């Protein structure tokens, strides 16, 4: 591992499948020690990108380096420092938790004298030690995710990739998994996450990259993304549905107006004195019952940037 190198460096990365360009000149850098989120609607090229990072798929052009190692030429070194928690967990459900860990330890060449101690410690960490002899097939979704995480950490990787780490798990298990992920950063590990939950991205990631149609749309911290792309969101409830929508849309800085019954959602960009003008228009038609001004959430930013819902 090269200490000064970025954790992941993608340089002008392209991947074609026949005539389809799944990844389109993607350049991105993930720093060592950060939790980095990769967001994009289904079919945006996230999985293809990750497959190229882990060496499962070869780029059509461009280059990927992990901790300074060229993924194509030094695949083995990359695999040694990469821990992966795939979405489907890739656990042998017919085998016990311990056997799964034991098999992984052998595949990654963990010294025999350390194997037992490491497996025990990690199963303990994810609170599955008491179920070590149970078949994985009998585990809940959350338990499987925890076990997959423990397995990915077994060979002490420097970069951990988690694909939808909390997909299909309950709220309690989600919180536990978040805690494990945040603890990884404390240990100096780099974590790459793909997720469809923006709440998750906001809670965990220091930086986010949004990709769509294989292209990088934006990359920044969640807060900065909100500032740059978000503006403000004004939500109002009036006595009756508002007719003067065209008048509101015509106000300077208003980028979007949505009405649902008596509820109105207005998105504005960069204009601070717009609220009194909106109130003025609405009160001409009837009583204003409620008003709230807030920052946009990541869902709204994502929608604005990609034109698609994240959970397409």
């Amino acid at each position, binding site marked *: 591992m090269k200490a000064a190198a970025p954790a992941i460096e993608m340089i002008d990365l392209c991947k074609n*499948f026949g005539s389809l360009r799944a990844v389109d000149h993607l350049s991105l850098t993930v720093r060592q020690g950060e939790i980095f989120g990769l967001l994009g609607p289904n079919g945006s090229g996230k*999985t*293809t990108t990750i*497959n190229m990072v*882990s*060496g*499962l*798929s070869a780029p059509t052009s461009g280059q990927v380096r992990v901790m300074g190692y060229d993924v194509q030429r030094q695949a*083995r*070194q990359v*695999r*040694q420092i*990469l821990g*992966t928690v*795939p979405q*489907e967990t*890739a*656990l*042998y*459900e*017919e*085998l016990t938790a311990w*056997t799964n860990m*034991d*098999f*992984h330890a*052998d*595949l*990654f*060449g963990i*010294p*025999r004298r350390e194997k037992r101690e490491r497996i025990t410690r990690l199963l303990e960490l994810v609170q599955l030690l008491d179920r070590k002899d149970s*078949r994985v097939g009998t585990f809940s979704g959350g338990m499987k995710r925890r076990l997959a995480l423990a397995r990915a950490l077994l060979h002490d990787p420097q970069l951990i990739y988690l694909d939808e780490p909390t997909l299909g798990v309950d709220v309690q298990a989600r919180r536990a998994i978040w805690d494990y992920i945040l603890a990884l950063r404390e240990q100096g590990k780099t974590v790459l996450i793909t997720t469809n939950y923006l709440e998750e991205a906001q809670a965990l990631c220091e930086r986010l990259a949004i990709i769509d149609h294989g292209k990088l749309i934006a990359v920044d911290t969640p807060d900065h993304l909100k500032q740059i792309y978000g503006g403000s969101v004004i939500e109002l409830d009036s006595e009756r549905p508002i007719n003067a929508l065209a008048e509101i849309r015509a106000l300077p800085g208003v980028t979007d107006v949505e009405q649902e019954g008596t509820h109105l959602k207005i998105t504005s960009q960069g204009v601070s004195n717009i609220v009194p003008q909106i109130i003025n228009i609405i009160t001409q038609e009837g009583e204003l019952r409620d008003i709230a001004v807030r920052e946009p959430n990541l869902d709204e930013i994502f929608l604005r940037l990609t034109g698609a819902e994240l959970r397409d």
Partner: protein
Amino acid sequence: MVREPIYTLRVIWACMKKDIKSALTERAFTIISTLVPLNILILLSLFVIGGGYAPTAVVMEDTGPYAQQFYHAMSTAHSFVLQKVSAPQASSLMQSGRIVAVVTIPADFDARIRQNQPVQVGVEINNLNTDFTNDIRRAVPLSITSFYAKAFPHLVTVVPVEHDFYQQDTDYIPYLTVSILVIGMVLGGVLLSGTAAAREWEHETMKELLLSPASRWSMVVGKMLGAFVISCASLVIVLAVLIFLIGVWPVHWGEVIAFSVLTMTIFIAFGTLLGTLLKNRQPVAALAFGVSIPLFFLSGAFGPISFTTVPLQVLAQIFPIYYAIVLQQHAFHNFTLNTYGLGGNILVLCAYALALIILAAIVLRRSTTAH
């Protein structure tokens, strides 16, 4: 990280152990796969036993010494399963379709023979199956010739003088069952290794293997060894039935073991390749049967392929089953069915084994979970 050769051995051992454990958890499937070769052995043996001899009723209206001698000639013709019955019983058996023919030895058989008069032996044939019908049509005149050759040697002046190429005769069943042993190894090997490889894709566990730093060939070898261990169990069962129940003892025990290992290696590698390519157990199982059975019939399972047409011989020699059958027949019966010699046949099989292992490793290397 442990040192390279030890690490490689560890990966091979781990993959083998894991596959055996996985197979043992799917008990029903593993038991069925292990018993498939035995099933084929029993099935084809029954086919041979049932199909080789025509059930025939003999109505002995005369029980004199010549009539008895004629009956004996029929019984040694290797074509009939005889039973002595009365005329009404024979008629009833014929009506119910349980016999192919009724041979009636007339009441004046002995008297007419003694007086050197023509005798008419009645042969009533249920000719719904040409194969059996022709057997009867060939075997009855043969029995008459044999009867005369024994009863009146001075009358039959043309006699064959047989010089055997081999010291012992090899019966149809011992020959065929050895071929069945080979097809059992082929089918068991392809089925067990193919499904083990495909299971990794079906259960999406292949990522765990592909994302590890272990070499692809060490994984392939490990997985093949897992299938090999289970296939060995299947082989032991089939061999036990072959030796202890059917009574076919090998002449060269060492060859049986060595050629079995070689044959299983080839088809386990082929199964691993198939499973990696198809990524689904159902088509693997279908292909295992779909490929093995026709190749079995093509590769000289029922008799030396050199006795057939040239195109068939050329076709058979493309596939390794042919060479495997040649070698196992030598191990069991000490004869060689082609002119390549043991070394030549072994060399061809070794080349197949090596090529398939390399191919399986390449295919696995090129495989990705995404595309």
